Every structure is written in structure tokens, then in C-alpha cells.
């Protein structure tokens, strides 16, 4: 089996004043390439910490995390930045687009930090066309609807052909109709290009559309179960 994520005994401890707070208390699981996984759990369950760790925004305090063959635990900040750039595409709840840049400018950003100069604009355009925004290239975020903004964010996430897409409540700021569109866009990306999808959510309807649900509780793995019927 081709594993894209191997998490072994992940522990993450924060210092809050004088106390150490354990956000993750030894979580282990694997995710196969091309899988669609949702991570669920009540607030305080370590869901966000899990996402930050899987997205290489943060290092685990102990344990081993291998992303697409690279061990992340021992990396320095710049190496982590490089891994994020090459292997992770982020989709945030609040879109996080830069309002000064046009749609295509926003999508270009990861390519800029990858040091790609040749054909950058073309790749950004291709990504925007893939998400159905071929006619909104030069619009700025405030000229786009919420759904369109999230599509730009998805285009930005896939432009660098990452190993995984980390989506943090991707439909949280959208109404249900537009939310469905975004979900089907993400699912289609998985179907067409085999992109691994990791969706952090507390919405059971979203989780139901994924192949597997990883539930966290109090910083520990609660259950990891296959969804019946969602596998296509």
C-alpha cells in the first residue's frame, strides 16, 4: 500500500503559563495515497493541532511523522516551509486570499515561493480553469463571491501539484448550496487527479462524503472507521 502519511505516536505539548497542556497524546494512523479522509472531533480534541502537524505548520513534540517519504519531525523552519510548499495545499475556512492580488496573482503565490519563474502564469491559469474560474482571472477577491473566493483558494492549493490537500472547514463560511459545490469540486479533484484529501470538519454531512473518518477525543485517536457506501 502506498502510504502518503504515516503518523506514529504523535505527541504535542503546549506550555500554557506554568502548565503543560497535551494537545496530542500519542496518535498513530496512516493515510493511503488518493484517499479522502475527514478528521472530526469536538473542540479541544486536538483537531486543529492535528491539522497543523499534518500540514507541517508545526512540529510534533515527539513521535514520528512521515509525509510522502520525508520525515518532518527533525526539520528546521526553512525545510518545513519547503515541504509545505511542495507537498501540502491548504484550503482555509476563511479563504485567506490576499486582497491586493488578483485571482491569478493569488494562485501564483506558492509558485513564487517555489522559485518557479518560467510558465508560472500559465500554470496558475490552468489551475483556475480546473476550478471553473477561467473567466475570473484578473478579478480581485472583493470582486468575487464567497464560493468563487474558495475556488481561488482551491486553485492555489493544487497549483503546485501537492501530495495532500489540507482543508480546514472548507465550507464553514459558505451557505449549504455553495458548500456542496466546493465539496464536489474537491471530490472531483480527487477522482480526476488522485489527490489525497484531508478535511478537518465538525459537520457530519461533510464527513459522510469522505471514505474514512478519523475521530479525535481528548488528544487521542477515538475511532478510525470506513464510511459505508461513500467509496466510489
Amino acid at each position, binding site marked *: 500500500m502506498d502510504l502518503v502519511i504515516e503518523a506514529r505516536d504523535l505527541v504535542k505539548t503546549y506550555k500554557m503559563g506554568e502548565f503543560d497542556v497535551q494537545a496530542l497524546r500519542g496518535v498513530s494512523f496512516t493515510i493511503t495515497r488518493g484517499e479522502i479522509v475527514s478528521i472530526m472531533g469536538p473542540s479541544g480534541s486536538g483537531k486543529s493541532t492535528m491539522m497543523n502537524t499534518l500540514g507541517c505548520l508545526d512540529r510534533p513534540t515527539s513521535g514520528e511523522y512521515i509525509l510522502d517519504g520525508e520525515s518532518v519531525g527533525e526539520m528546521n523552519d526553512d525545510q518545513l516551509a519547503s515541504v*509545505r510548499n511542495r507537498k501540502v495545499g491548504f484550503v482555509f475556512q476563511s479563504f485567506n486570499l490576499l486582497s491586493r492580488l488578483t485571482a491569478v496573482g493569488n494562485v501564483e503565490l*506558492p509558485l513564487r*515561493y517555489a522559485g518557479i519563474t518560467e510558465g508560472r502564469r500559465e500554470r496558475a491559469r490552468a489551475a483556475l480553469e480546473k476550478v471553473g474560474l477561467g473567466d475570473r482571472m484578473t478579478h480581485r477577491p472583493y470582486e468575487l463571491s464567497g464560493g468563487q473566493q474558495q475556488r481561488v483558494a482551491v486553485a492555489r492549493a493544487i497549483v503546485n501539484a501537492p501530495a495532500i490537500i489540507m482543508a480546514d472547514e472548507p465550507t464553514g463560511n459558505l451557505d449549504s448550496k455553495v458548500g456542496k459545490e466546493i465539496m464536489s469540486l474537491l471530490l472531483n479533484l480527487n477522482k480526476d487527479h488522485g489527490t489525497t484529501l484531508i478535511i478537518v470538519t465538525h459537520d457530519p454531512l461533510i464527513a459522510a462524503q469522505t471514505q474514512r473518518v478519523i475521530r479525535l477525543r481528548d488528544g487521542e485517536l477515538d475511532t478510525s472507521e470506513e464510511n459505508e457506501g461513500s467509496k466510489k
Partner: protein
Amino acid sequence: MSFGQALLEAIESLNGNKMRSGLTVLGIVIGVAAVIAMLAVGNGAQASITGSISSIGTNLLFVFRGAREGGGGGPGGPNRSSGNNDRPLTLEDAAAIGDPFAAPSVAAVAPVIQGNATVTYGGEKTTISISGVTADYKPVRNMELSEGDFINAEHILGRMSVVALGPDAADTLFGRHDGIVGETVRIEGQPFRVIGVLVSKGGGSMGSEDNAAYIPFTTAQARLIKKGSLNQVDVIFAQATSAESVTQAAEEISNILRQRHRTPIGQDDFTVFTQQDFLKTFQTITGVLTIFLGGIAGISLLVGGIGIMNIMLVSVTERTREIGLRKALGARKKDILLQFLTESSLLSLVGGIIGILFGWLIAFIVGKVATATGNNFTPIVGTDAILLSTSFSAAIGLFFGIYPASRAASLEPVEALRHE
């Protein structure tokens, strides 16, 4: 990310907040403009003084009566009240200095006696400085005539009543300074024929030489300016053979006068002052002035720099989320650092360029005002001032940008993304 991209992004970002960027730039503009204008005024003053000192002659030495007080000295250094024991300078002293064997470095000597006298022509009347001079005065002092001739040896031998007028004196008396050769003016009631009019030298540091009259030495001695002892002179001007021999000439003149006045060593009763001494003294003064003005202006540049730091810190706080996002997308520390440093440097660079133009304008206006009020003074915007203020403002942009930029670069992506 390449520098070109960083520059484009910085322009985009600064453009997004025009008012704030503009005000920040204004601080630098004022600072740089002040530095440029102040240095220009200082340099202009220096050039103006250097010019007027140079205009009084070439390789010139001045011999005054009386010892120079202390060791420092200045243009006012010759101390004329140092006692009655001082022997006055005489025509014989001047002749001895002019001896080519005793003083080979001295090319020409011009003894002068000076006094003030009332000059009249028709109804016009003015009191001006009268100098009794010899024929050598003209070459020694670089005098030029706009018409007629200067005093010559014949006038001196014959004690003739002739006068060469400075242009300002001519203007006062005749209302013009051309076509007046051959007219007769009265000096202290005695008639003098005008034989020449001098070319204007501008306001010299030695008092205006344009508002003066020059008559033969012998005539002055006999009729106008009475001195205690015979053949006494006020100043002896001497010209060295070359710029290199000025010091040598000063030494020779001192030795001759020590011998003639029989003064013990170290107790000279005369002072030899060179043109370079004057220049040095004035250049020291204007140099201090320039540094002082530039320093004050530099403080405003510093304040402008602090303004940049302030705005950059605000900007970093405001854009914490953006920084977090950029890091999530793969920006390394140095990418963020470069981004913010480029912004702060761009602010100060733009401010610097506008400031140079603005300072230039101020200097130009100061020059116009000075000319309009009759002062011969042109501020000089030197390349050194431009280079200095440009590099200084760029350095300020970098220096005051480093702290905010490194703060931005060291933000934790997780924390920054969570920032509201």
C-alpha cells in the same frame, strides 16, 4: 523569490495604503531635503568666501604692524593695540622686502597707507576709504580696470592729484561707472582727476573694495593721510613668486623685518599673514557651520527613519495573518524578511529621491533670495551631498526596517494564521 518580484510586491503593497506610505515618505523627504539644502548653503558660503578671498590677489601675503595675539589667530588676529613699543612698518621696510636678493621668493611688494576721506562731485558727497598705493598694487591685488588706467610710477614721482575709483564709489558720485575718466572730483576739498575706474570685485571679506578710491602713495602721504612718522605705511602687500613659495616668502619677510626692527626672537612686532591663512580660517569656520547645519538636518532624517520603523511595525501587526498565510504557502524566513525590508527601503529611497529634488529647489530659492537682496551667494548642491543623503536614507530604511522585518519573519505560522 527574486528581488524583482519582491520589489513589485512592495510597490503593490505600498500602493495599497497610499496615504500612510505618503506620510511616511514625507518624513524622509523633509529630512533629505533639509540635509541637501543645508549642505548646499554651507558649501555655497564656503565657495563664496573662498572666492572673495581669492579675488583679493594671488599668492598674497599681508604684513601688519604688531604681533599676532596668542598662537591661534584669525583674520582679526593682527593686534594693533599691542603697545607703543612696536615699530611701525615703513616704506623702507617695503623696499627691503622687495629686494630680490634678500627675499627671492617675493615677486612684488605694494605698501599701502589708508584713511577715510570725504569725496565730492557736484552735489554728491560720500565718505569712503582712501588708499595711497604704488603702481605694483594693481598686479599684486589682481585689480582690473573697466576704463582708463591705474596709478603709475610717473604719478607717484610727480605726486600727481589723480584718482582711480572703485565702481560703487563712482556710482555714488556720478550715478554711473563708465565714461567718467577725465572728470574731476574733490577729495577733502582738493581736486583730483579721475584716471580710471576699477572692475567690481564683489563684497570682499576685507570690507568692500568697490567703494574706495586709490591715489598715488606720495600724494596721500604728503596731502591727505598724515602719519606720526615719516614714510609710515599701514599694510604691506607682497606677492610670492608661486603658490609653493608662499611659506618661504613669509619666512624671508619675517627674517628681513626682524633684522630691520632688531626684535628678539619670539617677540616680533609685526605679523605676516598669508592668503592661505585667511582661507584656512574661513574654511574652518564654514566647515564647522556646514557640519552643524548638516547635523541638525540629519536629526530630522533620523526622525523620518523612526517614522518608517513605526509604520513598518504597524504594518507587520496588521498583516500578521498575511504573513502566516505566506508561510503556510511555503515562504521561508528570508522571503518574509526580504519582503518587508524591500518595503521599508523603497519608502526611504522614494523619500530620498523626492527629498533631493526638493532640497535642490530649496537651495535654488535661497540662492535667488540671496541674489535678490544683493548678496553674492550661490548655494552649491554637491554630488557628495546627494550621495551622502541617498546612502544615508537608504541605510536608514534598511536599519529601521530590520527590526520590524525580522519580527515578521520570526512569526510562527500557526500563531500568525490564528491572528484576527
